[in-house]
């Protein structure tokens, strides 16, 4: 029999229901796996072994949808009484006095929370290199980055250090690491999942979503965490379907759009070939494929880096040394305490983004930058509205290249920002989008493809993703660690 840690949540549930294994046995195996692998991968920043083993024993025989299933949370999701630091020095020692809504929903469903995953500081990055704990390594090649910002969550799923994980996605932070680590990552529609208790980066873009080993697990986990929440006024009061029912292996008549603006200079040849052959496979299974145009694509990164940094600079004003986390010593007065605390507590990328965002919002520049970006955001949104009149879903590469080397882009912020070129538009338009494995490079690095659909149409995404996945074997391949 396979090791328990290498199984999916739906398979483990089946075994537990039949009485062939127990939550405690799964948790025991998983923590040995973490002990064995995480010295190399560095995906887990807080290991909650003691509590998790107790909770695993307690969840035995329970009925919740995730009863006894281990889940790793990104370190920007609040868990009452447990460390939650956004991988930043400024939140050292912080233990939230409440659970995020997704945390509560996971606990109610019987999930076993196993700890916190590494990330770029405050989710600012595409490589996990801005974490105050140091970088997470890509399980397929430890000289490479796992992607970011949810790099710890994706690397942990890929290396079988967890069964399920949650990440957050502001400009691609679930999908890009999922692609680079060869796993499944879904950014739900904006408003589908409550953001209450997710430490905010850019409030008009952030969404929490699943990172899993297959599409079936992503559907299961989304069904548990989705839904209206009175604690998040941007969550939407629409019924939550049982997404598992959308997993049909049938794309007959599905209209797939392939945007010509995504297949441009800078797109790696092997990535392009993999995505194109994935589209061809779906066509051979009965889908209709057409070329579409999203004419404002080239403006998405610029728009994003104004909107996201402006919102971040405002959200991060709360880290001032008064209520939680770090406080610098020897301040001569209150303002000096703010300045010293923030200058010591934030890392380089956080400072860079706070500066850019503050600049874009400051007197004399607001209209030229922030307002302009909000207007271009409208144009980008309209591109999608128009495109979805002619197709049901859109398929693109997730990342322009497979995983790059650690250190390769750290001195060139702009080239790092451009690695999110294909994922940013979904956030600006609020649309759901998944990344699923669709191939490997000659060097053996995973390649991901992205599937986008209309707002609140995650079901079409699951249908297309499941059909592709079940017709291929890419998602089954795991790295040797």
């Amino acid at each position, binding site marked *: 029999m396979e090791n328990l840690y290498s199984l999916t949540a739906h398979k483990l549930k089946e075994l537990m229901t039949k009485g062939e294994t127990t939550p405690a046995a799964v948790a025991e195996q998983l923590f040995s796996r973490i002990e064995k692998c995480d010295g190399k991968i560095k995906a887990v920043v807080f290991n909650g072994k003691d509590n998790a083993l107790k909770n695993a024993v307690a969840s035995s025989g329970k009925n919740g949808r995730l009863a006894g299933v281990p889940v790793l949370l990104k370190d920007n999701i609040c868990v009452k009484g447990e460390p939650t630091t956004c991988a930043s020095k400024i939140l050292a020692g912080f233990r939230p006095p409440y659970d995020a809504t997704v945390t509560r929903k996971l606990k109610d469903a019987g999930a076993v929370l196993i700890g916190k995953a590494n990330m770029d500081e405050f989710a600012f990055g595409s490589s996990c290199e801005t974490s105050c704990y140091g970088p997470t390594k890509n399980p397929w090649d430890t000289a490479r980055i796992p992607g970011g910002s949810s790099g710890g969550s994706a690397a942990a799923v890929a290396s079988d250090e967890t069964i399920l994980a949650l990440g957050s996605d502001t400009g691609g932070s679930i999908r890009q690491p999922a692609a680079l680590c060869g796993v499944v990552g879904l950014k739900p529609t904006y408003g589908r999942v409550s953001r209450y208790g997710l430490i905010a980066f850019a409030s008009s873009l952030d969404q929490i979503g699943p990172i899993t080993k297959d599409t079936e697990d992503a559907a299961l986990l989304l069904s548990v965490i989705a839904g209206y929440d009175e604690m998040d006024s941007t969550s939407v009061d629409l019924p939550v379907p049982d997404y598992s029912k959308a997993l049909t292996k049938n794309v007959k008549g599905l209209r797939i759009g392939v945007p010509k603006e995504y297949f441009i200079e800078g797109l790696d040849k092997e990535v392009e070939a993999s995505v194109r052959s994935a589209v061809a496979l779906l066509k051979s299974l009965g889908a209709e494929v057409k070329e579409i145009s999203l004419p404002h694509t080239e403006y998405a990164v610029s728009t994003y880096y104004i909107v996201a940094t402006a919102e971040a600079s405002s959200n991060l004003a709360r880290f001032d040394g*008064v209520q939680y986390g770090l*406080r610098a010593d020897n301040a001569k007065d209150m303002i000096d*305490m703010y300045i010293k605390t923030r200058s010591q507590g934030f890392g380089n990328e956080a*400072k860079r983004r706070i500066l850019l965002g503050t600049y874009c919002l400051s007197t004399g520049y607001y209209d030229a930058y922030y307002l302009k970006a909000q207007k271009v955001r409208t144009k980008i*949104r309209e591109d999608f509205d128009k495109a979805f009149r002619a197709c049901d879903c859109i398929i693109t590469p997730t990342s322009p290249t497979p995983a790059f080397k650690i250190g390769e882009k750290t001195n060139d912020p702009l080239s790092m920002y451009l690695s999110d070129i294909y994922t940013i538009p979904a956030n600006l338009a609020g649309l759901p989008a998944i990344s699923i494995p669709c191939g490997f490079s000659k060097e053996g690095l995973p390649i991901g493809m992205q599937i986008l659909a209309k707002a609140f149409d995650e079901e079409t995404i699951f249908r297309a993703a499941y059909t592709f996945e079940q017709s291929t074997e890419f998602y089954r391949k795991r790295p040797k660690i």
Partner: protein
Amino acid sequence: MKTIDSKIVKHVAHLARLELDDKELKEYSGQLASILSYISKLNEIDTANVVPTSHALTTLKNVFRKDVPRKSLGPDEALANAPSKEDDFFRVPQILEGK
């Protein structure tokens, strides 16, 4: 669009309550200038009659809850993470001038 120099970066840093040494100031000024020059691409688009999007969901409305009392964090929980406290208060350095 306007460009950015170290004088502006210094001013912006102060607005954001950050302190930069000379090396950081030089580094950030260069990097921000190149990011802003890339961003200036947005000027190619005519947005004269475009309504700005502040949220992806156009249906979003302000939400009010009923004004009824309910349980919230008590002082002990609210102060549990305070770097410094006194009685039921967050303790901070001096705010007003003088003694």
